[in-house]
């Protein structure tokens, strides 16, 4: 059973506009959430994270919002740039000491000029 779901396999956005990537989770024990970005033939790179005690975290053009009651988080990219075109993975941790993460299946973002 998928505990972290990214229901949109792909998203297309024009340069300069906002990109919104969504993620839902089912495990109430998850209390730390991360977004990773992955280019083809490269490993994922960490983008931004949020703890369950917050509802928003911002880093430059990237903002993550967490709605615990809905078990939903979203990543906003403003403004979107062609270099943001990549696969974005949502991941969640239940706070175990081993830092294991459960990943979603990813959303491919395409930002066109």
């Amino acid at each position: 059973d998928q505990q972290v779901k990214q229901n949109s396999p792909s998203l297309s956005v024009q340069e300069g506009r906002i990109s919104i990537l969504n993620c839902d989770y089912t495990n109430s024990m998850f209390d730390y959430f991360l977004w990773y970005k992955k280019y083809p033939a490269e490993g994922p790179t960490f983008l931004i994270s949020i703890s369950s005690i917050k509802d928003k975290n911002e880093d430059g053009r990237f903002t993550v919002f967490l709605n615990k009651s809905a078990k939903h988080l979203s990543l906003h990219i403003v403004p979107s740039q062609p270099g943001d075109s990549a696969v974005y993975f949502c991941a969640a941790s239940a706070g175990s000491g081993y830092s294991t993460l459960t990943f979603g299946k990813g959303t491919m973002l395409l930002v066109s000029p």
Partner: protein
Amino acid sequence: DVKVTQSSRYLVKRTGEKVFLECVQDMDHENMFWYRQDPGLGLRLIYFSYDVKMKEKGDIPEGYSVSREKKERFSLILESASTNQTSMYLCASSLTGGRYEQYFGPGTRLTVT
């Protein structure tokens, strides 16, 4: 600068061969992980290790084993490679404590013919 390196970027092996994938991190991280990434399936955890000589099964350990003789090195072993093990293999490391991001290597694209 943090670094996770993997021994090969591309590897082609024959069915039945024993395959070793090596991963080295230079960040003195306690935890190390092996994932495989397949289209439409996201990242799936194969094994992880939280200390030297310690290992734990992930979600899909069948057909794989691991070895961690030194803190900085984590090896993934395919005892008898099969075509359904053709995949992108990603190694990651992290500090322990449940609130730390994982740092990924560049990946090894393994093809089993």
